[in-house]
Structures are given as C-alpha cells and as structure tokens.
C-alpha cells in the first residue's frame, strides 16, 4: 500500500520542484516580477475595457452582456448621450473648461517658467515656493478655499463656468511650469548666449531663439493641461452651480451613486478616447519636434507621464 502511494506522489513532487526551479531560476528571467507586472497591468486596464464594452450593450444592464449596439451613444431617443440634454451639456461644459484652461494656463505658465528660470533677484524664491504649492495641495482644500473666496470675498464672481475656469487655471499653471522648466534645463543657456553675442537684445533672444526651442514643451503642456482639466472632478464640483455647469466627471459621480444606465459608460468612454487622443497627439508632437536631439526615450515619457 505505502509503496503504491509513494510511487504516485513521487512524480507530483518532482513536477512541483521543476515548477519551483523554473520560477526561481536565477539565470533566467525574474519570473515573479514578470508575473506581478503583467498581473498589475491587466488589473489596471481590463476593468476599464470592460466598462467600455458595456457602453455598447443592447440592454439597460451594465453587468450582463447582451449584444452590440450604439444605442447608448445616439440610438436611444431619451437616454443616449446624444439625446439626453444633461449628458450632452456635460460634454460641452467639459470641453469648454478644458479649452479655456489651455488658452489661459499655458501662456501664464510658460511666462512664469521663463521668469522663474532666469530671475534670481528678490522675490524669486518666494515665487518658486508659491508655484510648487498647488501641485501638493489636496484638491479638497483648494476646492473649499476657492468656493469660500468666491462666496465671501470676490463676491462679484459667482459659482459656475467662470469660477470653474479660474479654478482649473489655478491648478494647471504649475504643471505647465514644471514641464517648460524641464525643457529649459535641457536646452541650457548656450543658444541665448550665442544670440546675445551676435547682438540680440534679451527680448529678441527670447522671442526669436528661446520660444521656438520651447515649442515642444508648450505643445506637450497644452495636451497635459487639457487632460487634467477634462479629468478634474473636485474643483469642477465645488465651483459648479449645478445644471449645465456639471462636467462629465460630475455626471459619472452622481450617476454611479444613483442607478446608472450604460449611457454613463458611453459618455465616460467618449471622454476616455478624447483624452487619450489629445495626450497621444501631444506626445507625438513632442517626439516630432525634438527629433534628432540627444536624450533618452524615457525622458519624453516622463514629460507626459507627470
């Protein structure tokens, strides 16, 4: 009896050992790390893909797949993204805020980055310090303070679109500064010095030499600002006055707390595709504009992956 049992367990044991040996093989690939990394990547992306899948569901369910349809995008006469005014307005409001944010925050941020990189006099330290703070302040603190300043101090600005734009610009400027300043560091000062040696005034050197060199960073920061503005929930919510000023993230938030339809998945998917498109375009533009420059690929990615 025992002999039979032993014979049966023996091959199992050796398979296990072989498996363990394959897993721990010090000369092969670090299999544990490979496993963890790919498991993480699947875990981080697959749920979102499933959510996108259910935006194309034929029925009202977000959990049981029926068949493919575009009902929740435009087919349904009441609840689709195209026909439901609350969803349509949310989409418009999101793009309006993101567009205005890019138009205001990018110029302000570029000028601020230039100034801070070259200005070493009195006040430059404090300005640097103030610039970094919005990056690390929890959004709820910014949301509360902006709401209170608009209701108690600057009472001529009411909550709504204008307040939301002001809030978005406030948290976006620092991202622009960080990206542009990274580029300024990698350009160095030699081009400006060459321009100065050839007789250019600082202003001419700035507009004719430095700004063209900064174009990749300006394009990249525009893409980043658009994306963070479109994804923002907290500031938009605190400064919203409801109705048409609710953005897509606010709609998703309030819908998930009620009983959502796949149209919420549809509007979220639309935002997902637009954000990824903008960021990809920004990244490709960055690569195109910096082609031929020395540098590591990961530097580029870090510029956008901020």
């Amino acid at each position, binding site marked *: 009896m025992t002999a039979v049992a032993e014979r049966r367990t023996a091959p199992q044991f050796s398979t296990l050992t072989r498996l363990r040996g394959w897993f721990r093989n010090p000369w092969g690939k670090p299999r544990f790390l490979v496993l963890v990394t790919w498991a993480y990547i699947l875990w981080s992306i697959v749920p979102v893909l499933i959510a996108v899948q259910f935006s194309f569901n034929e029925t009202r369910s977000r959990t049981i797949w029926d068949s493919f349809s575009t009902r929740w995008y435009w087919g349904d006469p009441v609840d689709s993204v195209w026909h439901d005014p609350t969803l349509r307005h949310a989409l418009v409001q999101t793009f309006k805020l993101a567009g205005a944010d890019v138009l205001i925050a990018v110029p302000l941020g570029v000028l601020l980055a230039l100034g801070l990189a070259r200005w070493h006099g009195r006040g430059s330290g404090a300005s640097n310090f103030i610039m970094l703070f919005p990056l690390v302040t929890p959004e709820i603190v910014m949301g509360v*303070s902006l709401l209170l300043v608009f209701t108690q101090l600057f009472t001529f600005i009411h909550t709504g679109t204008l307040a939301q734009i002001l809030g978005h610009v406030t948290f976006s400027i620092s991202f622009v500064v960080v990206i542009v300043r990274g580029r300024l560091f990698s350009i160095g000062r030699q081009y400006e010095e060459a321009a100065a040696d050839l007789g250019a005034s600082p202003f001419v050197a700035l507009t004719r030499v430095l700004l063209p060199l900064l174009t990749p960073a300006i394009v990249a920061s525009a893409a980043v600002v658009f994306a963070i503005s479109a994804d923002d929930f907290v500031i938009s919510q605190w400064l919203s006055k409801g109705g048409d000023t609710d953005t*897509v993230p606010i709609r998703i938030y309030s819908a998930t707390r009620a009983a959502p339809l796949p149209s919420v998945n549809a509007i979220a998917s639309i935002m997902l595709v637009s954000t990824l498109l903008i960021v990809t375009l920004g990244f490709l533009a960055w690569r195109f504009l910096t082609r031929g420059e020395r540098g590591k690929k990961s530097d580029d990615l870090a510029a956008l992956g901020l």
Partner: protein
Amino acid sequence: MYRRWLWPSLSFPGVFWLILLFVVPFYAVLGVAFGTVDPILFQPVPIWNPLNWNVGWMNEVLHRLAPGGIWFDVGIRTIVYVALSLALCLVIGYPVAYYAARHAGRLKGLILILIILPLWISYMMRMLAWVNLLQTDGYVNRFLTFTHVLSQPREWLAGSSSTVILALVYGYIPYLILPLFASLDRIDRSHLEAARDLGASPWQAFRTVTLPLSKTGILGGAVLITLPMFGDYYTPNIVSQSPKTSMIGNQIDLYFHGGPQPTIGAALTVVLAGFLTLLMAYYLWSIHRAQRNVGAVGAL
C-alpha cells in the same frame, strides 16, 4: 537696463494669479474658520483681521476630533485607510516599477506606456469600472461564486472597508509607480555590479544598494499619493455611500454640500491642511533637492 526687470515681469502675471486665486483663497478659509456665524440666517460671517479671530469653532472641531469626540472614529479610520492603502500600493507598485526599470529589456517602452496609461484615464471612469464589476450580479461576484470562493454573491458596495481600500489603491497606485520607476531607473548599474563582485547575494545587493538608492522615489511617491488620499471623499462616496466608511474629506463635503454650517467645514479644512503641511513640506524639500541634482522633469 531692462535686463533687470525683463524676467521678473514675465513671471508677474503667473505669480499674481497664484497669489489672488491660491494664497488669498486660503486666507478666506482661515477667515471663515475663525469667524462667527450669523445667528438668524446661519450664514458664516468671516473675520479678516487675525487679531479679532474667534477660536470657538476651531475649538469645537478639535474637540470633536479628540478621543471621545464624534469624529474621533472618522479620523482614526482615515489614517488607517490611508496607511493600509499606501502599504498595499508600495507592495504592488515596487515590484512593478523595479521590473519596468531593471528587467523589462526590449519591452521597456511598452510597459512604461501601459503603466502611464491609467494616469490618463479619468479617475471617475476607473471608479465607474469597478462599480460595474462589483455589482451584486457583476463579474466579480459571478467569478467568485463560479469558483466557489463565495457560496452566494457578496454586497461589495454596501459599506465595506475592504472595497474602499481596494478602490483607493486602484485609484492612486499609478501616481506612486511613476516616481518609483524614475528613481529606480536612475540607479547606476555599476553600483550593483560592484556589490555582486564584492560577494553580495542578489538579496543583499538589493537591500544594501538598490533599496537605499530608491528611497527618494519611495518617500516622494508615498507623499504624492498620501496627500490626496487624506483629502479624498469621492472614492468612499462612490463605492460605499455608508457612514461606516466615511473619511475626514466626507465630513468636509457634508458640511458644505449637505449641511448648513460652512464654518465648521472650513475649520475642519484648516485642521486637515495643517496636518498635511508636514507631509507637503517634506515633498517640496525632496523636489527641491532632486531639482538641484537632475532637473525638474525626472523629479516628478
């Protein structure tokens, strides 16, 4: 001559904007928190002069947060949730960042893109994805009952702490992996070769060389995700909606969006901001130091 004022004047619009809409608003919070409340309309009456500040509401808030107060549990829960989420993020994130930086080889670019990708997917979209999966008849329950891990579907979205922690980890881990990757990627491989040549085992080399050299990334990334997690209120609201899982942020949200007492909300915001200032100060200092060494982009 105008060389002297060219650069400061370029920074002026940005600095002016930030003073007006970042520094002044924070002062407005202080004014309201240390102000009084109109006895008839219950509207906050801010006091702008610090010499006249009324500390009554602040005392009230601190009293509620102290042991025995009605917010003591909420405060402890916030700290426990954030600590557990941070620990889980590090346990999952470090191996991923390590693999991407050290062993990914030809796949490095692809893996890096896949790691960065969640940063560009809206936070609300990612939470929505999990709300769908965790429904009573959702994929998670169906999978777990199919494999007989659960005998019947579990109510994941009805005030479960584990769901909130899972959601926090899922939401914030991409922001941790990127700084970890940046710091691990910067480590010069010759240090490791030297350690191995001198007889260190792979584990010893990791413990004495890689881990200390990635400390900036670990601490920087940890602070980067800890700060927003402490101020989070939407994640527990989305995946639980139960007072059993409410955090400090939920109390602030409640006093502004649900209740009539912005003064208490403002005072609680001041307490939260004060608590987080230490963490912020550390982060700013570490950025400052890293900037001196490598330049701004890598530091973030």
